């Protein structure tokens, strides 16, 4: 059963299994283990970024394609839900239609980009994605009639997913729509992750790995490399868009900064590299660590700074304002010591 769910791709390391299990349980029981608005926000963000990063890993880690347009696809999904909710009115049908259209638009756009650039060298694809992503980001902020511009869009999701919808109490926790929304996020992210895990372990996924290893030979044994690369790009884009839709349902707001910004693209890249490229489980660990660091490093540093207030210099270094500095140091160290990512390290691959 577990084998089928994981598509035969077990963690292959006891420590890694334990870590993954802890993350799974913590996310599954987050509303009860870590009550509070902020921790629930963090947990939902982790779920969504796991899917987003895993879909990027399908491209970067499995197929060996560098793309800078992943946040664009993420944004397409998010705006799809937002626009559908505004124009179709509040309701689950709007969420479904918005997600489906967002994913479709992402796949079509990815297909177009792939058609133009995947035949030639990989670097060309990276440049094209960069150009298209920048163009789309500018378009979204300019077309304020439709997209709300820099302000973004606020919209209503079904009442069942809002805090106003209350239906009792359990384990001292008030059961409300926010809890339902969280479990919608958790379940759909878990499902999407398992689907991706299946895809990379399918015959299709094997071909992607072969292309990453040696595209010249993959073609020479009879695989149409361009077709496979294009399919991987479309699939990855569609899943990223779905992650964006889930994000939009959770936040009830979309804006260029939360979905399209280039800094998110960098975050995704770092999460993949830190977790371990080409492993899928790397996405889980990378996203969890990164989002936790983003949300709690400042708090942690604040208390560390207070604790060392008697010492010279150290409190200044540990001041919460320096959190980006320490995040940077953490990245450099992790890339230096774990070139194959945390998962690669745990699996004992050099």
């Amino acid at each position, binding site marked *: 059963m577990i084998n*089928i769910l994981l*598509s*035969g791709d077990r963690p292959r390391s006891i420590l890694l299994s334990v870590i993954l299990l802890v993350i799974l349980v913590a996310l599954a029981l987050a509303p009860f283990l870590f009550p509070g608005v902020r921790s629930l926000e963090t947990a939902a963000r982790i779920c969504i970024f796991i899917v987003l990063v895993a879909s990027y890993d399908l491209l970067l880690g499995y197929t060996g394609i560098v793309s800078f347009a992943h946040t664009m696809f993420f944004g397409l999904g998010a705006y799809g839900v937002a626009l559908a909710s505004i124009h179709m009115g509040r309701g689950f049908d709007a969420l479904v239609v918005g997600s489906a259209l967002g994913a479709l638009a992402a796949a079509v756009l990815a297909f177009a980009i792939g058609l133009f650039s995947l035949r030639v060298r990989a670097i060309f694809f990276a440049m094209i994605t960069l150009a298209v992503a920048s163009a789309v980001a500018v378009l979204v902020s300019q077309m304020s009639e439709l997209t709300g511009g820099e302000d973004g869009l606020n919209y209503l999701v079904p009442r069942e997913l809002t805090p106003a919808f209350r239906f009792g109490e359990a384990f001292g926790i008030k059961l409300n729509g926010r809890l339902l929304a969280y479990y919608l996020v958790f379940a759909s992210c878990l499902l999407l992750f398992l*689907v991706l895990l*299946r*895809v990379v*372990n*399918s*015959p*299709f*996924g*094997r*071909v992607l*790995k*072969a292309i*990453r*290893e*040696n595209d*010249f*030979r*993959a*073609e*020479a*044994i*009879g*695989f*149409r*490399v361009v077709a*496979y690369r294009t*399919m991987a790009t479309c*699939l990855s884009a569609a899943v990223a868009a779905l992650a964006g839709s889930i994000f939009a349902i959770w936040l009830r707001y979309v804006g260029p900064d939360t979905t399209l910004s280039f800094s998110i693209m960098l975050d995704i890249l770092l999460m993949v590299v830190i977790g371990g490229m080409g492993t899928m489980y790397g996405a889980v660990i990378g996203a969890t660590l990164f989002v936790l660091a983003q949300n709690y490093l400042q708090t942690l540093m604040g208390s560390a700074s207070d604790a060392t207030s008697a010492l010279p210099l150290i409190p200044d270094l540990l001041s919460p304002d320096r959190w980006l500095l320490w995040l940077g140091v953490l990245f450099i160290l992790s890339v230096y010591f774990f070139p194959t990512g945390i998962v690669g390290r745990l699996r004992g691959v050099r």
Partner: protein
Amino acid sequence: MHQPILETDGLTVRFGGHVAVDSVSCAFNPGELTAIVGPNGAGKTTYFNLISGQIAASAGKVTLQGQDITRRSVSQRCHAGLGRAFQLTNLFPGLSVLENVRLVIQARGSGRVSLFSMADSDTALTDTAMQVLQRVRLDDLGAQRVSELSHGNQRKLEVAMLVAMNPRVFMFDEPTAGMSVDEAPVVLDLITELKRDKTRTVLLVEHKMDVIRTLADRIIVLHNGALVADGDPTEVIASDVVQEAYMGKELADV
């Protein structure tokens, strides 16, 4: 005279001013093993690249089983029955030995792509791959990463992958190059087996004259990109043109 399975007609490729393959016309008969010889830089591998499609021809055409394949892509030629092993080992280094062979067999199948089935659960595929590995005595190393294999074993895997493709026309490019004395026979036996199976056509680029004498039905000689001799192995090896173009030069080099 039966129809040739593979034919090149005036096949030419120029790199800038340099003519690497110069109007080579040659027909290969089904079931025949043809050795392609010539000094280094004669254009043997380039000729192979033109046939299997890695390089586009400047002029001339390639015909496989009566079909013009000059404009076809590498993978299309593969599915048409043209299989190629490479002179410089050209494998999937990060994957296991078994996975390398499995991919070849998977590629042979229909164009349908399975996205949601588990690759590992296809035991028939694995079994076929293991049988191929057995033929080159690599079955014990199936789980090993290719990058960890010795050079000789990588060469064997290169040959195994061509065998797994099971094409109509086998193209070997110096299959035993860099192999130790005890490793080469496995590969040569395999080629002998292919030869016995009269339905398989083999093109073999090879330098070792003893190998050619025992295996080849026919020899063609390339020199400066042009076809300079074609015929029965013993006659061609003895002929003046070969002595001069190939042996003479080789000896002069020593």
